[in-house]
């Protein structure tokens, strides 16, 4: 048993050291209030869990060292023990209390990260539609009227509202250092609110397996100061080409593509799905929508 524990702790130290020395783990290195809330929640739960592990391990070590047959003598006969109501109540109640505490923390942190971050409620959020197709991400900025592929630029200290959907299988939009992930699905919109505190380049990825190119489906989320952001938008509007419907449809079809920048977005001719949850194509408004339906249908058949 001792050898085992020595080995286990050795392994644990090695693994911690291996990762610990160069940089902190991504999830525990938040760069925005949402990711901070989650990181705090995770660390809080880890501390409580470590406490539980400690209690179990101490009891376990005690039982195994004290009551080995080799120590108990040849003719020792263990007593019959039915159980103890007091003890049973104790080890039911304490976990119940722990679960209640964790529940409160969970409900609060969940509603925090689902909403616009505290302190930013009054600010006008930047809306970005993030949609996935095959193994790439399209980012459409409806107000700015621009679109990017496989990278997204956002201003710091301003709430960003990502509206997620997919042109195919379910993907999951995740920028670990800024916020938790959420699914992007066909025929419905999911909202993800986040704020970036510090300028920098963050890894973004799809975390939900969606076919053979899944491993390559990451993007860069670059947070920049408000003025830099405005400047970038201006540059894009001036220099980038327009996104035609034809080009967009061919973009949807190919497997992979590098970064792209356009001075118009696909929302005008290929509107995003309407509403959260539920799926009713009839709800889509106008002729455009139904055309889009048939278009996308053809593509899928070719796929």
């Amino acid at each position: 048993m001792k050898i085992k524990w020595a080995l286990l702790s050795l392994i644990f130290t090695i693994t911690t050291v291996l990762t610990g020395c160069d940089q902190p783990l991504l999830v525990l290195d938040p760069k925005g209030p949402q990711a901070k809330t989650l990181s705090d929640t995770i660390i809080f739960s880890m501390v409580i869990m470590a406490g539980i592990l400690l209690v179990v391990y101490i009891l376990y070590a005690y039982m195994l060292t004290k009551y080995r047959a080799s120590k108990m003598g040849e003719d020792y006969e263990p007593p019959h023990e039915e159980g103890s109501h007091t003890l049973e109540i104790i080890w039911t109640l304490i976990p119940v209390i722990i679960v209640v505490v964790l529940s409160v923390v969970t409900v609060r942190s969940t509603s925090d990260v689902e909403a616009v971050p505290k302190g930013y409620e009054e600010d006008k959020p930047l809306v970005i539609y993030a949609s996935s197709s095959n193994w790439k991400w399209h980012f459409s900025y409806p107000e700015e009227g621009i679109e990017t592929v496989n990278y997204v630029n956002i201003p710091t200290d301003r709430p960003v509202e990502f509206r997620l959907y997919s042109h195919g299988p379910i993907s999951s939009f995740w920028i670990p250092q800024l916020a938790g992930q959420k699914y992007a699905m066909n025929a419905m919109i999911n909202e993800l609110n986040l704020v970036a505190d510090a300028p920098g380049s963050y890894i973004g990825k799809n975390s939900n397996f969606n076919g053979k190119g899944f491993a390559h489906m990451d993007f860069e989320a670059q947070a920049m100061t408000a003025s830099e952001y405005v400047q970038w938008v201006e540059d894009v509007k001036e220099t980038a080409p327009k996104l035609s419907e034809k080009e967009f449809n061919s973009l949807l079809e190919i497997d992979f593509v590098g970064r792209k920048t356009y001075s118009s977005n696909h929302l005008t001719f290929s509107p995003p799905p309407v509403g959260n949850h539920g799926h009713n194509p009839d709800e889509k408004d106008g002729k455009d929508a139904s055309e889009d339906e048939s278009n996308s249908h053809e593509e899928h058949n070719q796929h």
Partner: protein
Amino acid sequence: MKWDEFFVFTHDPMLFAAMISIVLGGLAIFVGLTYFKKWGYLWTEWLTTVDHKRIGVMYILVALVMLFRGGVDALLMRAQSAVPENGLLNAQHYNEIFTTHGLLMILFMAMPFIIGLMNVIIPLQIGARDVAFPRLNAVSFWLFAAGAALLNISFVIGGSPDAGWTAYFPLASLEYSPTVGNNYYSLALQISGIGTLMTGINFIVTILKMRAPGMTLMKMPMFTWSVLITNVIIVFAFPVLTVALALMMLDRQFGTQFFTMSNGGMDMLWANLFWVWAHPEVYIVILPAFGIYSEIISTFARKNLYGYKSMVVSMVAISLLSFLVWAHHFYTMGQGVMANSIFSIATMAIAVPTGVKMFNWLFTLHKGKITFTTPMLYSLAFIPIFTIGGVTGVMLGMASADYQYHNTMFLVAHFHYVLIPGTVFAVIAGFHYWYPKVFGYQLNERLGKLGFWLITISFNVAFMPLFILGLNGMTRRMYTYSEETGFGPLNMLSFVGALGLALGFIVLVYNIYWSARYSPRDTSGDPYDARSPEWSTHSPVPVYNFAIVPTINSLDAFWYAKKNKAPFFEGKYEPIHMPSNSGQPFLMGVAFCFWGFFMVFSWWIPAIISALGIFATMIYRTFERDHGYYISVEEIERTENALRGDKQ
């Protein structure tokens, strides 16, 4: 369909090697059976048997083969991800491998291993001579075997499912997964699932109706309790899978739109149906494990199980909660704060009854007299390792935090920390523990302990790093990753652990061979001085289990009979009624296998012919007059004397 789409093994040297080994292995078995003239023996003693013990052994045998298959998948996956940008497997091959690894390990390894153990042990533990419906039991096994065969064929013929064991739509739809892989998924799981559902019914009836006189519910051994509750879960959960798979088949092969992206289909519906089944499924493989640990810990602590009643109550609580938490598998689907909070709280609530069980096991050890045999070592290792799995489960249960763990290696580490020390350690422990009951000799302890240390240490080396990788943002199911991610070293460490695990399992299998040749016979029938009724009869167990059905007047009645030197069996021999063997379940399984295969490829005419074959076996059964047979008193006396030998 083109031929090279059919024979997919022609694309890939690794698959080609697999194909050749399958053909050669099959040929070797065929030649061997013919050469040693064992076809008759195989048919009369095994293929047609309705004896619960033999059916159990066959389940375990298949489970071990599938453990090997799933284990090779795991090794390939870990080898592929051991270094960044590895070229060992391409994306398609990797996707097929992690999909079949999940399916094989859960449905064709863990479940049949558990069902095998319960087949062997439950009638013995309740003092019965067989299960309630022996013929149905054989049908269950052969349907399971047909499903397993079908899924394994997929690797070389037509291609395996490649959309994950969860097969989320729209990814698993015809549009995005046009090969027959996911047809195999829907049909192989359907066929074996029907078998499992029948097992569920069979064992509920067996445990409720066939207990020995005097054995009230609260006098049942804990393993029997766990199996009863498990089978209730099976009966409630599996119909959901049946329906979901039927809808999947209709979508993929008959043009319906239940889960598709257009015409009102809902991909979320699949995710919900799948997890309404798959979450209870996890408890189907874990609760019997709890039962096995309860038996072993109490036997080798030489003490009664602490808190028997609370053990039962906590298992019932877990089984109820298991149906109320399915949505925690997709908190990130955007159900909103309210739904996520409710499912979070329900999920974390499971920790309470599980904790109660943990403390009861610890207090069973208290004041005990612990001997460290191989099964006991596995049971003791379960406690600290499974607790890590349990507490990380609570962490994952917190909806907000799950937004950061979901789909990452943290999750992968968690469920391996639950399923391996939970289920796999339990079935290995149970395998070592009950082995002498079935075969009449114990597995070697030295080899057993060597295997134990290899498996336990390597397991931690293989899976502990994944927690850290997950927190560093590594997602699951990636066939490759770049150097810059920094995931390399820990993945390499994990691969080393995986190799150690493989070595451990090789030692385990070698132990079976070694012990068969050299282990001394156990003539007592009760090598551990154990407590429950299965140890009261001979090893190996005679076909009728008990010459005289015991009367049970307390929990651990056999133990007290031994202590008080009182007779456990009272009365005299009477003729015993036994069910007759039948080839019908085997033929039905064969017909199902052909039907499934033809359905996969949408070859309707052969499929209809095979379906007629299935119905033929059913009609045959309907008109069959078979009242079983009697074993005469003289024959019982002869058998008993022979088995007793020089014992008394």
